[in-house]
């Protein structure tokens, strides 16, 4: 019983992170048509920011988190302006540019942190929430899941209730039609990657106190985000969130009750199955005929 309850809570915490990773990737792909391979590295930069600002320079956690988000958002916006915008008609070029950024950010992390063991950040919210014999959750994790949900809620509000959000969704549906309707592609793309970067930075900053920080931590992020994106449906943000939570449940429970290796394999197999049966994903938009 304890393992079961513990796994349910673990799944939701994981689901929160998976959502933050995937939604950013989906948004950029939907709006800009670019596969941003450096997305995982953006998360990594978020985590390193916390290590530098909070753990090394002693800045309190919350301001450090805000600065991490700001920094990664800025990197994202710069990527859009100087690397993706000139390559709008050349998705393969955009892809290579994102790989270039990936290499550069990994080396930057290496320069900042050095070789040697992965970096660790002591959790600012210490202590554990305990119901004896039932459940134990560190406050740090409760904080992370609360912030993730709040951020996703805010994004949902932005996308469905504001004009800018509406233009973002219109672009994701059909870029050419959106342009014809007078939506400013440059501005919308910049907002898309800004939001994507903010979510990545937030995810990294929230993860920093609970994980090992190293220059290659983005690898796992991008692969998980791909799986979630495909299962959820490439054009669909709500699909991404749903798929993230489902995938987190699958991964957590298979890991807890069978093994982590089986969990990874089953994730890939489910992704292949979804691609075969319904290439547009569980919540993907229908391809118009």
């Amino acid at each position, binding site marked *: 019983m304890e393992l079961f309850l513990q796994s349910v809570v673990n799944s939701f915490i994981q689901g929160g992170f998976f959502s933050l990773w995937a939604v950013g990737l989906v948004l950029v792909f939907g709006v800009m048509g670019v596969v941003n391979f450096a997305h995982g590295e953006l998360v990594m930069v978020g985590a390193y920011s916390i290590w530098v600002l909070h753990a*090394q320079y*002693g800045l309190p956690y919350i301001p450090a988190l805000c600065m991490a988000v700001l920094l990664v958002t800025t990197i994202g916006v710069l990527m859009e302006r100087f690397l993706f915008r000139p390559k709008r008609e050349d998705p393969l070029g955009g892809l290579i540019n994102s790989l270039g950024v990936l290499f550069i950010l990994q080396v930057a992390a290496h*320069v900042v942190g*050095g*070789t040697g063991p992965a970096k*660790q950040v002591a959790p600012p919210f210490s202590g554990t929430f305990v119901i004896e014999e039932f459940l134990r959750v560190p406050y740090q994790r409760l904080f992370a899941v609360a912030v993730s949900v709040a951020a996703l809620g805010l994004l949902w509000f932005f996308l469905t209730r504001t004009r800018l959000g509406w233009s973002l969704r219109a672009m994701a549906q059909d870029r050419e039609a959106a342009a014809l309707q007078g939506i400013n592609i440059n501005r919308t793309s910049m907002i898309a990657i800004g939001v994507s970067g903010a979510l990545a930075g937030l995810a990294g900053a929230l993860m920093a106190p609970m994980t090992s920080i190293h*220059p290659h931590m983005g690898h796992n992020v991008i692969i998980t985000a791909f799986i979630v994106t495909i299962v959820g449906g490439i054009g669909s943000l709500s699909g991404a969130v749903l798929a993230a939570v489902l995938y987190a449940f699958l991964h957590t429970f298979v*890991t*807890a009750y069978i093994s*982590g290796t089986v969990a990874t394999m089953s994730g890939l197999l489910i992704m292949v199955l979804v691609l075969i049966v319904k290439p547009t994903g569980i919540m993907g938009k229908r391809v118009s005929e």
Partner: protein
Amino acid sequence: MTKTPTSVFRQRFSRRRFLGTTLAGMGAALTTGLPKVGLADAKTVRLGMNIPMTGDYAPWGLPGLYGCEIVAANINAAGGVKIGNDTYMIEMASYDHGYDTEKSVQGFKKLVLEDDVKMVMMLGGSTVASIIPWAMRKKMLTTTLLPSDITPDTEYLVATCESHPLYNVTGVEWLADKFPEAKTAAIITTNDIEYGKQSAATYNAAFEVAGIDVVDVNFHGFDVADFAPIVSSLLSKKPDVFCMATDVYTTPIIEQLFHQGFKGKIVSCTCDGYLDVIAKTSKEFVEGLTFQFPDFDDPALTPDKADFPDPAGFDAAFNKDHAGEWSAVAWEYPSILLNWIEAAQAAGSIEPEPVLSAMKANSSPAHTFGPGKWWGADLWGLDNAVVGNWPVVAINDGKARIQEYRSVYDWLQNNAGVLKKHMQALDLRTV
């Protein structure tokens, strides 16, 4: 020791590392190919390191090069070493293979044929396997940190320092002696062969010999973002001892043990980042955590126990230049370098074959923690690994301290069969 994280970071940046490395790189790029002018009277012997210096294996390569450079600089400053009738300065030649087999082959040949090195130090695994045929044919003295690379055909491949993961038996033996009430153990490890499964087999055997039941073994990939589910799963088996067989993820795993209320004993292969662990959990929780790798400023590293010159001075020098980059390989490669010097002096030659013969002829070869014995035929078909004593380290009051030295060799003499059984159970190669 003042390894506070803040000082570590500021140090790095006060040295303008980025600019420095870049300029050094440019300089090297410009001068590559020009003949090197040496001192006329002192001869130079070059030793090679074919190791990962970039990529995710870099922490098991680069710190070793730094360590060797410190030791070599010390030796050279003291006038070099006398081998035979000549005095030699030691020079390190390195090649970054990034844990890639193709590059490993190129690096090995560059070091041997172009840099004329007399020994090549390597990490182990597939990067060693890909150079074995050529290295053995050229009779090139090669070292690995993983004795499991040894096969009946690898006459010129030796493991003189870290006998990963054989030393783990000492920690378990010590724990069982100190805490006889411990009856069950759970093991967590990575699912690769070279590091994870070898280590899991060793721990399985050590626990069996110590009379502790292993209730669960969890093999996980290198892609784990969150250890909560794995730790929950293992703790649901209620083990008295929680054992971490590989070192990549010790901190997040112990953090989970802390949050999930684990009350038993923790054993780990390494715990280089125990200060981080304390920061993430509590001093009380980590008290008594047992592992195998001492800090080099440990007062128990006395000259009679440890065959390493001025360990504390080495530790200080390393942390001055490379703060925050310490890993066990930082002293392991230098230790091999010292083994080589001893053997070369005994042989009176720097050439690989006589040095190897001198090494093998020594019935109690130098080993970091006191003299050892050549061993390995029982397991891999060739006695090319040096095993001897190994320290058991535990955390006392927030510091890693050597508790005692125990003999890996004695354990193997009595229990090699048990180890072999557990290796075979995990499909690991034995003779």
